[in-house]
């Protein structure tokens, strides 16, 4: 859509399979790219029926060999400051009869590097066991608490937690976009994104899972894990990130001096730093008034939509009742089309999130580090004859 091309949220949102943002690329299968000696991001000249365009090349697992996919919708001439000139216009090569395929494409490497914004490597292998896959009948032991030098900190009231079903996740990135809209997360633009300064509080990691049945991928949404033993907290010199009594790992923007050491110590790398002042662009009537804008030089991260928790808590108090399970929905949860995300009170008997946490598929990401994450995952199921 032309309207969508002008939407900076959408432009900056990584495409699920390629991880590219702010533009498109000609998609090759890895063997074809290797045969043409194309490194990811090399510029190619594509000629079809006497017309040619310059495009970036990008390898994608699952692309048919000897065949190139050219995504439509980019390379616009008049789509405002946001949408104009992002990527290349594949319509220039499209046959006049509107066919979706055409033979006889000529690919020539120009030797230049294309202006491409990639947020993920083309090929990602799950070496860390981030997305384990279970065959029928298999399951994990209950999530262990792990040893600690110190006694456990008791959470007798509510204990917020999240369970994300990797099996249900289709990698659409709607959660990331909903989070961005909800929490006034800035769009940083292609230059800053290419420098590794994206601000998304929630990212969706893709892992290639090739099998006998063909190429496949697992998608794993990664928000802040809200670790009970949060490694980010003990390294902060000014108490800018601490726990509240319901176990939330809260980020106190006003207190942050910007040492960035919390990000160093976060094994999930979900913290984001305001390298620049994004407030002028965000301070419009579009913004969510419930969430403060963050100044330059401070850290920010997923809060489990703590403003929604606070609002629900207040409402329950006014009505003189306890919080109901499912009353607090995070923005990512509400946006998920497959209901892969469950949120709630782990201490409440019979809560949906507690049930998911005790499911046999439940596991903690990098659980052996002893961070005791409140966000846990439900592993992917695979048929017996694959993987």
């Amino acid at each position, binding site marked *: 859509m032309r309207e969508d091309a002008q939407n900076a949220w959408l432009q900056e949102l990584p495409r699920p399979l390629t991880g590219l943002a702010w533009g498109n690329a000609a998609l090759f299968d890895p063997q074809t790219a290797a045969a043409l000696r194309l490194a990811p991001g090399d510029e190619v000249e594509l000629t079809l029926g006497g017309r040619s365009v310059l495009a970036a090349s990008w390898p994608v697992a699952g692309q048919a060999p000897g065949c190139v996919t050219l995504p439509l919708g980019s390379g616009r001439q008049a789509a405002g400051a946001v949408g104009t000139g992002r990527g290349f216009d594949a319509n220039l090569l499209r046959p006049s009869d509107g066919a979706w395929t055409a033979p006889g494409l000529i690919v020539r490497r120009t030797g230049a590097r294309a202006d491409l914004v990639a947020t993920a490597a083309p090929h990602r292998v799950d070496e860390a066991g981030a997305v384990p896959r279970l065959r029928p009948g298999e399951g994990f032991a209950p999530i262990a608490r792990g040893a600690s030098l110190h006694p456990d900190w008791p959470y007798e009231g509510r204990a917020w937690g999240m369970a994300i079903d990797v099996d249900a996740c289709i990698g659409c990135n709607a959660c990331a976009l909903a989070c961005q809209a909800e929490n006034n997360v800035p769009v940083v633009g292609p230059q800053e994104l290419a420098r590794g*300064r994206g601000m998304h509080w929630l990212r969706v990691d893709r892992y290639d899972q090739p099998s006998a049945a063909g190429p496949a991928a697992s998608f794993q949404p990664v928000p802040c894990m809200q670790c009970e033993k949060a490694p980010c907290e003990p390294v*902060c*010199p000014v108490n800018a990130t601490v726990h509240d009594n319901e176990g939330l790992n809260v980020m106190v923007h006003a207190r942050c001096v*910007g040492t960035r050491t919390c990000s160093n110590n976060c*094994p999930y790398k979900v913290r984001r730093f305001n*390298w620049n002042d994004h407030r002028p662009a965000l301070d419009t009537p579009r913004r969510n008034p419930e969430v403060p804008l963050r100044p*330059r*030089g401070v850290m920010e991260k997923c809060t489990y939509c703590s403003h929604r928790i606070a609002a629900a808590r207040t409402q329950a108090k006014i009505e003189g009742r306890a919080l109901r399970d499912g009353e607090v929905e995070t923005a990512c949860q509400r946006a998920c089309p497959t209901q892969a995300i469950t949120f709630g009170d782990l201490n409440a008997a019979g809560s949906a999130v507690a049930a998911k946490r005790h499911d046999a598929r439940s596991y903690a990401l990098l659980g052996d580090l002893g961070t005791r994450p409140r966000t846990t995952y439900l592993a992917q199921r695979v048929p017996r004859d694959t993987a």
Partner: protein
Amino acid sequence: MSVSTTPVVAAALRPGAWGFRLGLLLALAGVAVLAAAVAALLVLGIGIWGNNMPHVWGFDLIAYAWWIGIANAASLFAAVLVLRRHGLRTAVNRFAEAVALAAVLAAALYPILHLGRPWLFHWTIAYPATTGLWPQFGSPLVWDFWGIMAHVIVTALFWYVGLIPDLATLRDRAAMQGRLGLARAYGLFALGWRGSVVHWHRHQAAYRLVAALVLPLLLSAQTVVALEFATTLVPAWHQARLPVHMVVTGLPSGLGVVLAMAAVLRHALSIERIIDAGDMDVLARLLACAALASGASYAHEILTGMVFEDSATRAAFTARAFGAGAPAYWGAILLSVLLPQLLWRRALRLRAEVVIPVGLLAAAGVWLDRWSLVVGGLLREHLPAHAVAYVPSPAEWALLVGSAALFGAVLLLFGRAIPVVAMFEIRHEESLEDVAEEER
């Protein structure tokens, strides 16, 4: 006897030579670059640097750890000379301490400037604020606040207290020459030192005591910097050996700078008799020894990193030492371990044109090691991140050049205004030699 310290005093009291003026001009130009870099940083923010996620630290922490290493090794060296009552201390103690002090000042820039909001750095200090909040005392950065504070205060006091008797000498010399204003200035800082034998006794006791206290303090200063890395969960950083490794590999930087400074000073100030060939000989061999110790630490690192560590750490170390991080890692070993081995050849180590570049390149090699740790250490993390390479921006280069210029300017002014070697130590040495000769 009085003849021998005259060149030292002359150097401190004579009008500037053209070489000094040129050097100072260059250094002050560099300090102006520093001022511009700092101003740009404060106005525009840390976004003008090349940092990103996950490379939240870059030139800032590299330079910090590097300057601390130089200060650390130079101070350690000075303190050991005092404690061992080594003859070399008369010649090099004072400016080894000055190198340490100037390096600490250069280092102290970074913990403040690297903050996202530097104007709030005082929040790391425990003071009763209106918010009622206190610092988080368990943070390695709060340890580091105290580490750098202690480093600055003790290095400065140690240096100053050692200087008091020499300031008294300068006071009296200036008074003899009829320069009463200068005599007053020196006299104020000499605190009325009158050379009382009892005072000398306490002075020496306190000086040696602090020299002994400097050892644990310096080890802790460098160690705390290392702990900022070692206490994190980053696989390449989370190692118990890291503090020791940083102390040991830091030695060639401080000794290299002291050696190069000694070679420059003895020619520039014509004090070849005071910092003599024998002193240069010992210093050069010390650097070669430190480089060997550093090499041993690297060997241990490679062995543990490749064999004994868990798989995440092995993968991280492999990327750092044999993958994309290899040039910095092996560059560090080449410059700070292998190159100083040239100094085992006597003919080479007595030549200023060899000793000065070898000393400074050893320091550069240690800088590469810090780069390899801070940047190379993040090449592999727990999850396969899409790490965009860290490329320092011109603003960061300006800050590095500026801090080096600040270091140079402080040293030049120091060489100009006050005795570069401890005059009372020389007198003391020579009185002891006289006694020894008479006994013979």
